[in-house]
């Protein structure tokens, strides 16, 4: 079921808030997880259940401080027969939710995946200054981005994102390629989604060509940006010495791991005592080399993270935002995961049915390895 939805008062955001209110009032959803402004004016998320409180929801807020999938994993590991929670999230967040569902870290039964187009976001830190006091900032952003305008102030990962529309969703609300002042594109992909659309005044039609073209154009532009950035990265990082240098500022704080939506271990073994050495061992290693960098094992930590995350990484780049010493993780993980997923003909978050690459074996995969 798909079609256009009329925008009220030139405010797509208010229109979406209206949808929220309707779904909560009709009891179709018991709560909705949506972006919201924090008291301090930066980006956060909130779980809304009372329609009266929806003024605080900012569904199209163009800033990201956390990948919401991490939050979903915290509260939706198990399904509940009574709860029906709508997740109003960005494409990269929904893709991470899909990966977590496949990794059995999120139970999908109580959730409805509602997506929204996303053309790019700002870092949450400092967003207050970008937005200033403009109450209509979100709508302006949508207006500007509905035709796609390159914005070098977006997060690095966003500048490389080729998925402005969610890949798996029950329902999606789109503005790219639309005249967002007057209408939004609404598309229900599943029965759950159709349930939400029922009763809305949609003018049913096929996805407008203009929208399709805009989405394609955006993807193409982003792919070009990605290629350019990876080329720069290769210069900075390829080769063992450069690789060491690339991570040489790492504080071993593990923030990148903690904020990663698909890094799902209960306890990271890098936080365990596996690598704890006593003073004697440290001194022995130091004696061998003359001097050893402390904290130790940081490179191993990052290599392991790349290895563990490559198949499920959704390239949201939240790791880079969390790094206190600004190591260029977004481009690095884009490169590593893109290459790895290509080898497995896999795209993270593309489908709930596609098996995880490391959980399957195909006779024909990696035949080159070992033979040449």
């Amino acid at each position, binding site marked *: 079921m798909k079609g256009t939805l009329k925008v009220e008062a030139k405010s797509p955001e208010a229109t979406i808030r209206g949808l929220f209110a309707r779904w909560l009032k009709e009891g179709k959803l018991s709560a909705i997880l949506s972006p919201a402004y924090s008291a301090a004016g930066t980006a956060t998320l909130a779980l809304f259940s009372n329609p009266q409180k929806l003024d605080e929801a900012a569904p199209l807020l163009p800033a990201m401080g956390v990948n919401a999938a991490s939050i979903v994993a915290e509260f939706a590991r*198990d399904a509940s027969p009574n709860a029906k929670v709508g997740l109003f999230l960005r494409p990269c967040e929904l893709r991470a939710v899909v990966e977590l569902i496949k*990794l*059995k*870290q999120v139970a999908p039964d109580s959730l409805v995946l509602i997506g929204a187009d996303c053309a790019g976001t700002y870092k949450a830190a400092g967003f207050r200054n970008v937005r200033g006091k403009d109450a209509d900032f979100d709508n302006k952003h949508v207006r500007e981005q509905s035709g796609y305008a390159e914005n070098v102030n977006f997060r690095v990962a966003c500048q490389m994102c080729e998925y402005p529309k969610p890949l798996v969703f029950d329902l999606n609300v789109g503005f790219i390629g639309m005249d967002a002042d007057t209408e939004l594109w609404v598309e229900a992909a599943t029965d759950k989604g159709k349930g939400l659309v029922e009763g809305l005044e949609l003018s049913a039609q096929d996805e407008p060509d203009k929208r399709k073209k805009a989405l394609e154009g955006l993807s193409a532009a982003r792919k070009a940006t990605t290629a350019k950035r990876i080329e720069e990265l290769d210069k900075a990082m390829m080769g063992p010495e450069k690789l060491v240098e690339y991570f040489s500022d790492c504080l071993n704080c593990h923030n990148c791991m903690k904020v990663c939506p698909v890094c*799902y*271990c*209960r*306890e*990271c*073994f890098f936080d*365990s005592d*596996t690598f704890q050495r006593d003073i004697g*061992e440290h001194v*022995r*290693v130091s004696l*061998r080399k003359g001097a050893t960098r402390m904290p130790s094992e940081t490179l191993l930590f990052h290599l392991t993270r790349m290895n*563990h995350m490559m198949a499920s990484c959704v390239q949201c780049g939240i790791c880079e935002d969390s790094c206190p010493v600004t190591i260029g993780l977004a481009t690095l993980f884009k490169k590593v995961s893109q290459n790895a997923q290509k080898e497995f003909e896999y795209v993270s978050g593309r489908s709930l049915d596609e*098996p*995880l690459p*490391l*959980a*399957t074996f195909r006779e024909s995969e990696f035949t080159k390895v070992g*033979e040449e």
Partner: protein
Amino acid sequence: MSDSGKVGAVLVVGGGIGGVQTALDLGDSGYKVYLVERASAIGGVMAMLDKTFPTNDCSMCILSPKLVAAGRHENIELMTQTEVLGVSGEPGNLKVRLKRYARSVDLAKCTGCGDCLTKCPVRDLPNEFEGGLSKRRAIYRMYAQAVPNAPTIDRTQCLKFTRDKCGACQKSCKAGAIDYTQQDEEIEVEVGSIVVAAGSKIAPTGLRPEYGHGRYPNVVTSLEYERILSASGPYSGHVKRPSDGKEPKRIAWLQCVGSRDDSVERGYCSAMCCMYAVKEAVITKEHAKHVEPAVFYMDMRSYGKDFDKYVERAEQQYGVRLVRARVAEVREDPETKNLVLRFAGDGGQRSQEFDMVVLSCGFVPPPELIELSKRLDFELDKYGFAATDQWGPIATTRDGVSVAGSFAQPMAIPEAVTGASGAAAAAEEVLAAERGKLAAVKEVPAETDVRGEAPRIGVFVCHCGINIGGVVRVPEVTEYARSLPHVVFAEENLYSCSGDTQEKIKDRIREHRLNRVVVASCSPRTHEPLFQATVTEAGLNPHLFAMTNIRDQCSWVHMKEPDKATEKSKDLVKMAVARALRLKPLPKVKLPVTKAGLVVGGGVAGMTSALALAGEGFDVFLVEQEKTLGGNARTIATTVEGDDVKARLEELVGKVTSHPRIKVYSGARIKAIDGFVGNFQTTLQREERGERREESLKHGAVVVATGAQYRTPTEYGYGQSDRVLSQKELEEILSGSRQSPVAIRQSQSIVMIQCVGSRDEERPYCSRICCAEAVKNGLKVKEVNPDADIYVLYRDIRTYGLREEYYRQARQKGVVFIRYSPEQKPEVRIEDGKPLVSVFDPILGQPVELSPDLLVLSSGLVPQAGSDELAKMLKVPLNADGFFLEAHMKLRPVDFATEGVFMAGLCHFPKFIDEAAAQAKAAAGRAATILSRDTLEAEATVASVNPDRCSACHMCEGLCAYRAIEVKTINERTGKQAAVVNEALCKGCGACAANCRSLAIDIRGFQAENISREIAALLD
């Protein structure tokens, strides 16, 4: 001999894969086995092969573990260079006279180090194992991985025996194993049963002299070519021409050499040459991409599981050219030594030049077996294969003598292995009461509790004659070992594996109160179990042992750098000591076994399996969903060989229903199967007097024999005219159980179409039986109505093995066979209720119109309905076509990867009754290896989960080939989930641990921490 007068021992003649499998099954089931082999080592033809189809597994890699297991088995006595002289007595109590030829090497002393092999001055003898393509000496080992690994002396060539000179090998042998005084001897053994697994040989190329083998150096046999491909072969795996060592570009395979050829009295099809030729072509392409292989064939007989897919890949992906033509002659260009093939092809006589030609030789029974059959007093068929019965394809004409493998008829490895396990079952049926009577009983001393003790490590460093000691300075390594922390004892040995050293190691453990043992010697793959047994005998847990390989890793690879080899040996010893330091004793878990089997399916396979299991002495539950037993066989009148199926089936049902150990549950459905190997619990549902009842059965093993279904055709006008029938319906008409729309006697013309719904995109497999069915029914129609015109429209006629004879008969009786291609399928239209068939005849080169009275469709077999449900309950896989998938296509054809579950019959893949019966017996033979035990010992090196770290992501579940790990709720109150390992099923392969990013899974004995400490020791 026991009270019953029977002997709990079996003589197995032939040490190829068939004999080895029989011996292992019997040994594992509690019987003493004498494994007799005429050659100096076991392994047979399979040891000579490079790769195996359809999985391209390395032949030696999959065979070698079985050979090693047989060589080391406590119940198997290997008798190499031995032959059977004669037999006397009755089944159950036979006396066999054997002749053991002198090896001139004392097997008890020889350690297999190989020092003697390089000293022998007689070096130019043709190496028979390599097809004469390389040389061997007068003292030689048959092949590198030979079991036993000891060499033998060729007395006809050895200077000691021919001229009483030399003695170089004796001088070089530090173990004192060379014994020139050994004599041939006659021995007698008492056994209860005999299994002949004497194998077959490739057909002599002299049958087709016009192909020039022996005259033209670049014409080789398929077996010689296997050696050429093999990395351990005469050319180290480089594809080269024997004449000039150049890489050939154009290679031709000529099929049916000595097969399907009445002119040389080899009228049968050898059943496996099509596949091995295509495989050789594929492997050649993998070795050398520039090669252009071409296979000249008559019918492509890729009738087995996944065979058609393999051939298609060969053509599409590898560019193997398949040419349907029989080559008349091969001529050599004397200048280039290239070969010109003459053959009839498109547009008449053609000729083509090749650089090399491989003759796909068929298989013949070894001629010397004529003598053996006389000595053992059983009959051979007209070709010299052992004569057997369709329904008991394992029994020879003499009671108590069974046959396994390709000595019964030409067959590929999986069928041979199947027959071998079946033969084991047959022997067990005779000797059920003698189980365990002669089996070795191991006395193991009580285990010393070393927990809480400070580590006391003993290190033993091996010279291996000069194999290690000639390069590595062993005394220096030993001295170094002594200096390592916690090492309280270190010494060097000439041969660590010799019997006296084993005793010495045990003494040292006791004298020095060692609680960890390290041996630095050769490969753990071959020797670790031996040393583990030794430390166990000294009261240590076998997992307090660590081994490091300073032969392969040091003296062999750094042969010319003794300093570096010595330093590296020290490093490896240091690492092994670091590992030993943290080793913990691992408990062996013992699980009880319910000595009963569940057979699912009451067709021929299921009933045969049930009878065999019951005969072996186990209780059997036979579950059939229909109200009556019999399965598909109920619709068959006779086999192509003329067996009366109905009568045989009645006999079988009678035996099953009257057997006191078999309980039949007909009209029953399986609701659930819980548990695991040795301890299954199955819930049955059935209606009894209108009431639905549930019953619970306890058993230790499961045989799946659920069969398959005849496919109902949907094409070629079926259903539009009563004159369009399925092959099964024609069969019913011929047996009188169905009314024909036109009496067969009055039919002037019958057309059969083959491969209907088989070998297409939807079902890309061959249904295997339809060609012989068409031939059978064609012959039967001709019997009733000799004037009827019968046309069989086919793609390839696949009457493999001895069934080829009936194909020939059909042609002789005037049945017309017209080939069609999948691109130009026959077309059928129905006019006035009658079918009209048009087909392109490639011989006439034009379309032919036929208007038969009856159109018969060979529409193949499809998997049984409900297979996927049963598969889920048993946690076993189906293949892409929906048939049950065995653990290994080649060597475990009746086992599932899940232990304790076996399969038989059509549920595995379409097959004939004799094949199903053989597999059914085999399943019983395999199941006996479990049911014969009182307890099962689980592996000690299994996965273990730290539930605190487990994220319950389920990744490990999908990766476990043995279905041994599962995420469960481990705390009902908190709902906490974590992976749980079933130690009875876990093999410790480590796939789960490797993929667990939380490091929640460790393999006992190989903990990540231990390994990192071992690596850290190297870096220190």
